[in-house]
């Protein structure tokens, strides 16, 4: 009972791992570019959780600051990514990334 009631670092790490895994799964397997972007957001959030958790239990400000920057960059990333997806859609009339493989050979 102790280990459940006393919320510790491992709880947060576990959640972040799950989020990361889900995000990874989405990125790996979903065909819809937008869903992939969502997966990316999940991964970033998982990272943020880790940063903050570590900075809380080490009593430093670094994790806090970096997570702040991560959020900012995530915003930028989302904007650019969306724009790209829209361009892809304009070009290929689809957002299915499996059909967008002109890089092949």
């Amino acid at each position, binding site marked *: 009972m102790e280990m459940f009631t006393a919320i510790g670092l491992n709880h947060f790490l576990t959640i972040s791992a799950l989020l990361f895994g889900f995000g*990874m799964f989405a*990125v*790996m*397997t979903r065909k819809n570019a937008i869903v992939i972007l969502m997966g990316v957001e999940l991964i970033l959030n998982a990272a943020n959780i880790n940063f903050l958790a570590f900075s809380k239990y080490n009593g430093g400000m670094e994790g806090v600051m970096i997570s702040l920057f991560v959020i900012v960059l995530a915003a930028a990333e989302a904007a650019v990514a969306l724009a790209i997806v829209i361009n892809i859609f304009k070009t290929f009339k689809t957002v299915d*990334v*499996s059909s967008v*493989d*002109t*890089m*092949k*050979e």
Partner: protein
Amino acid sequence: MMHSLIQLSIVVLLLPLLSFVVLIFFNRKLPRMGDFVGVGMLGTAFALALYIFWSVIVQQYDPAFKVAWNFTWLDFGNVPGVGPLQVKMGIVIDNLTAIMLAMVTLISLLVHLYSTGYMAGDKNYGRFFAYLGIFTFSMLGIVLSDNLFSIYMFWELVGLSSYLLIGFYFEKDSAADAQKKAFLTNRVGDIGMWLGILILYSQFHTFSYDEIFQNIAAGKFNLSNGWLTAAGILLFFGCVGKSAQFPLHIWLPDAMEGPTPVSALIHAATMVAAGVYFVGRIFVILSVDALHYIALIGAVTAFMSATIAITQHDIKRVLAYSTVSQLGYMVMGLGVGAYSAALFHLLTHAFFKACLFLGSGAIIHAMHHEQDMRWMGGLRKNMPWTFATFSIATLALAGLPLTSGFMSKDAILAGALGFAATEGGGIYYIIPVLGFASALMTAFYMGRQVWLVFFGESRTHLKPAEEHHDDHAAHGHDAHGNDAFDHSSGHGHDAPHGVHEVGWVMRLPLVILATLSIFIVFSPDPLDGGKGWFMHLVPTPSTVVKSSAIAHEGALAAHGEQPSAEAVKAPEHAAPENAVQATTGEHAVAAVAGEHVAAAGEGHGPVFTDARQAELLHATHANHYTAIYLSSGMLALGLSLALVVYKFGAIDPEKTAQAIRPLYLYSFNKWYWDEIYNATFIKGSMLLSKSCAWFDTNIIDGFVNGIATVYRKVAFANGSFDKYVVDGFVNFTAFFVQTSGAVMRKIQTGKVQTYLVMVLLAVLGYFAYYLVQLMK
């Protein structure tokens, strides 16, 4: 400066050549195919030759007469080891030359004349006269030339012209074979002669008779005497070929394929005479052994061909073998040292044999080219002129006294006897014995021939018809449409009534030649040709062979430096008186013997400087009358035998033939010489040539191609190694890179997610590694 006779003789030499050149090119354009050109040229030539004969024989009447002229034909410059070297060609005229010149041109002229009748209407009429021209030309060349080289050249030219004339009816295969056979057989003889010439040249670097004689006399012959004998025998081989001596006699009977006038020319005047004449020319260098060899050959030839002549049916073949036999006589005469007698016989024989051939030609002509005596007979009435002349010539050939043949043949036989005696009798008597035996047979077969042809009844109808037709077919090309008769008459039983005497152009030569067969032309004494001008003017020259040369080195030293024309004079100076004295019967013999002793005593004198020759001469005259009696006996025997057999039929020839069939066949088939040669030499060389060709294509060329094949194989192996191993390695590298690239390419899907998976896998891999590390 050139002697006028020389100039004349050159004209005589060139006229027949001119006629050849003109006729060979223009015979079709000229009227009468230009036969008048040939006859005219020969007529002129004969006139000139007669003038030469007159001025030499009649005016000079000098046994030693001789004019010579030569020019540098080749100039070798200054040859290392020899010094200045030239090959000279030239002309020499002495008594013998003058006589031969007249004889050849006369007979050639007569043959020309005769041919205008005999060959009339032949489609190659003109060409025939052209060939006669070149034949005469080359014979005259032989007569006139003064050196071995030019005589060899004309010698071969005679071969060529005989080739052309024998094969005149070249469309007939037998004629084509005969001409080839004649040329090749002569070639065989010629290489012997050529080798003889080479032996002499290799010693003296000259071809001229006189220089060679001079050198030999001076003992400059550096090889052993065996070589000299060999040279003599080899030179004699030329004569064997041309004069149809055993073993090269085979071509002469086949030469009968030529037109009959040609046979006359070949047998009497030109070709066969050349051989004997040549041996006469080189007589002085013949060593004793060579002479023995020659005598033997002559005797054998005479005997063998006489035996063959007995059984032949073809009128011309009988004459052909009689010619061979007579030539055997001449050669034998030369061999036994009866030089003058042999050449005398050459002359007399020329006339009566020409007469015989032209006569037989007349008969054949009249009988529409029937040549088989079995189907003739009874022509005496139809052809009186021919009959008369033919019989005279026959008697001359058989050697009846009062004919020319008697004198010459008798002289030869006397020489043979003397020879045997000189050589010490014994085995040497084989030669005179053979001689007399052939005399007997000569009388017999000539009697047989005359009887079969002229006496009895016509046997034309006995001839099997088809053979008759074959005969006509075989001669179909032969002078057709020339004779005035229709051909049908040729077939009928009434042939003799269809047979008429030939025209005057063919009759005239017969008459002339017959008259020239009478003794008086040559000698006042019908029993002794030795009293005649010929024996006087053509004496036996003294031999120069080294063995005997030692005896009179002094004499030669005396005129060693004289010009070549003079070189041989000295011995000839010696000869005539000798001959004259010797021929004056018994007391002379003693004289000769005495002088001979003297000669032996004082080294060199007016008589023969060679002891052996002197002795021969002595013995010959000792045996003179023996020879006369014997030969006359033989003649009588032979003729009477012929009469007995063919007139009275006391002996049936058929039965006799059956009785002695093997002998008969042996003779009838000419001792099977043709078969023997055919089986050995011809088959042999054919086989050899086949095998050579096989060797060439299969062995040598096979070897070459084999090398090529091996090389190709190796090259191929090398190539495949290069292709499959070396190149293969390179290609394999490329292939490996390519395939692996192709595999890798599959990974390159272009899907970002795949790449992500890869990354993830890598991370997991790192995890795994990390865990393993932890385990330890």
